[in-house]
């Protein structure tokens, strides 16, 4: 009797150990570095949510290469040196790829790790043009809407209005400064003069002085370059207070729904860049899944994460294995992936050996009406 029970326990124990180790082999680990608590949380959190949702849906259909995807999520607090440390941790944990959903300088510093360890590294939503140019890292891919593309799309939309001189308004964060630089370069290319660049610093209590200067310059439009949170509120308050009428054109961070609450009634008529067109079937599919899971309609940000994880899964299937070089080559050879993000007719692709995948024709222009993101009024750069 007791020997039977002993052997039963032994068999049960053996089985438990076996299934444990077997299930450890049954998953593909994907690392996600995100900001849960600091200044990038605004956009990092929704993008990460999109990655999680995408992974869940992929797993329901069997995952990739016959194994389920397991996300290991690390918080870098938008601190670049922590981001690099977390990247190393993820590599030690055995991830097949790293997804960076955090501020651009943090993503930049994490690239040191992906380059050194030859790990596939994707940023689905960062838009800084310098991420693929500062460091020649063949393992790093960027599918976020580049600031240069955003500007070109905005300029295409407003070409008929014949802008000659504009003002750029930014704050002193890394994202904003990088946007402003890219905007400046893009404006020079189309021959529009940047009459003035104003900075609203963090901790400012009023943007009246800045906007008075803009008003005095008599510009044709104001370009808002990635201004974050409280500074953005100051900008709109001062704009309203000074009774200004210049058209405001904004980067894609104006597509964050939280701003509509923060600057309620102040953003009427603001034109901004987005990459989300709900009329597109893939976008609609994504939105339906999102609503079912979270009970509210999605902004564009989770869609970037959704597309990102699906791109990774696709690269894995194409590579046929998790070999680092094969993964990299598979990713680089992706040329026409149609995702939830992007205007109708646009697709993700790393053509001509470039590592930026956002379709130059993929951005759309929308206008804010009645405290809501209005419908798409323009697409692409033509």
């Amino acid at each position, binding site marked *: 009797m007791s020997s039977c029970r002993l052997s039963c326990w032994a068999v049960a124990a053996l089985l438990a150990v076996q299934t444990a180790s077997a299930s450890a082999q049954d998953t593909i680990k994907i690392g996600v570095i995100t900001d849960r608590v600091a200044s990038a949380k605004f956009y990092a959190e929704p993008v990460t949510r999109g990655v999680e949702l995408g992974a869940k849906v992929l797993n329901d259909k069997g995952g990739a290469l016959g194994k389920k995807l397991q996300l290991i999520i690390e918080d870098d607090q938008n601190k*670049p*040196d922590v981001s*690099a440390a977390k990247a*190393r*941790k993820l590599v030690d944990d055995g991830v097949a790829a790293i997804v960076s959903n955090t501020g651009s300088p943090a993503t930049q510093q994490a690239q040191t790790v992906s380059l050194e360890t030859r790990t596939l590294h994707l940023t689905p939503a960062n838009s800084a043009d310098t991420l693929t140019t500062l460091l*020649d890292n063949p393992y790093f891919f960027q599918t976020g809407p580049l600031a240069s593309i955003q500007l070109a799309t905005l300029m295409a939309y407003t070409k008929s209005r014949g802008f000659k001189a504009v003002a750029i308004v930014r704050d002193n*964060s890394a994202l904003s400064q990088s946007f402003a630089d890219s905007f400046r370069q893009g404006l020079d290319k189309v021959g529009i003069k940047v009459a003035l660049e104003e900075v609203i610093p963090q901790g400012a209590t009023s943007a009246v002085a800045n906007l008075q200067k803009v008003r005095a310059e008599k510009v044709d439009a104001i370009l808002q370059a990635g201004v974050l949170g409280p500074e953005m509120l100051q900008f709109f308050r001062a704009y309203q207070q000074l009774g200004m009428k210049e058209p405001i054109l904004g980067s894609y961070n104006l597509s964050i729904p939280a701003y509509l609450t923060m600057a309620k009634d102040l953003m009427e008529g603001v034109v901004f860049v987005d990459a989300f067109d709900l009329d597109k079937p893939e976008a609609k599919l994504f939105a339906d899944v999102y609503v079912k899971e979270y009970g509210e309609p999605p902004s564009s940000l989770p869609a970037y994460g959704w597309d990102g994880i699906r791109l990774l899964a696709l690269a894995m299937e194409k590579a046929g294995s998790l070999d680092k070089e094969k993964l990299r080559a598979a990713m680089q050879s992706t040329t026409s992936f149609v995702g939830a993000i992007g205007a109708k007719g646009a697709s993700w692709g790393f053509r001509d050996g470039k590592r930026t995948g956002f379709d130059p024709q993929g951005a759309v222009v929308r206008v804010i009406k009645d405290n809501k993101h209005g419908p798409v009024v323009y697409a692409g750069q033509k």
Partner: protein
Amino acid sequence: MPGASRVLAWLAAIVAASALAFWLGGYATDVYRKMLIWIALALSYNFLFGIAGQVAFSHFAFAGVGAYAVVILAHKIGLPFGIAFIGALALCALLAYIVALPATRLEGFYLALATLAFSQLVLVVIDEGGSLTGGTGGIANYRLPPVLGFAIRGPWYTVLLVLLVALTLWTLVRLDHSAFGRACRAIRDNAVAAAAMGVDVRRVKVLAFTLTSTLAGLAGIAYAYVDNVINPSVFGLENIFLLLFMIIIGGSGSHLGAIIGAIVVYLAPFLLEPIVGHGFLVVFGVLVVLTILFQPAGLAGLLTWRAARQAT
């Protein structure tokens, strides 16, 4: 402890700390390297704050000056590394001297605010420096060039950091046990009495500030090559608070305290994060308040107290 066995003890510690570098994996090496740099910074800050009694908030700014100076000189302007290195240190020392001359006339927290204003100005200069400093995005895409024909990579760079800590500690201990160190402590405790005893208060204060800030610059230079990326954020306000907390919790005025404080405050978030998430900073704040209230000698004080008790 007699001279020979002390030298042996130092060597043993250095060898042990270096050997660890060859044994650690990628992530652990990263943690270890950054911890070594924090220890170096804590040691020099402990001398400035704990021994010389100057509450300054500029330590990280000088680390930043060192880091940016060496990277700009060596990789943007293209000077040979040896010259860039010396140039960066010289720039730190010069800047520290210029700041120290007026700053040491201030007392207590007013010195803290003046040095805080200075460090914020340094940040503004870096942020708005355009393509020279890389602005808020920073500078990347450089590597430590071969020194004397030897490319210092991997665990060997960690060994270099161990040597940096050893050098910093040795320098500060020597200074501490000299007339200069005694003068610093005398000024910290009672500047008027120290002056009455013949100490040149101004000169000692300026020297202490300049020396420790230059050591901070040295640590900054070392930091620049850990990830081969520098950006302004690491030299900001958050980290100066952390450094101050390290000294307070470890035991201000004690070199051992600085080391213990740096290790505890640096490693604690890794352990606490899975449990309390971002809230570990509250733990630090509470620890700081508790330390000041109940155990001003810090953790090092606890150790020496226990050692003293065991001796009786």
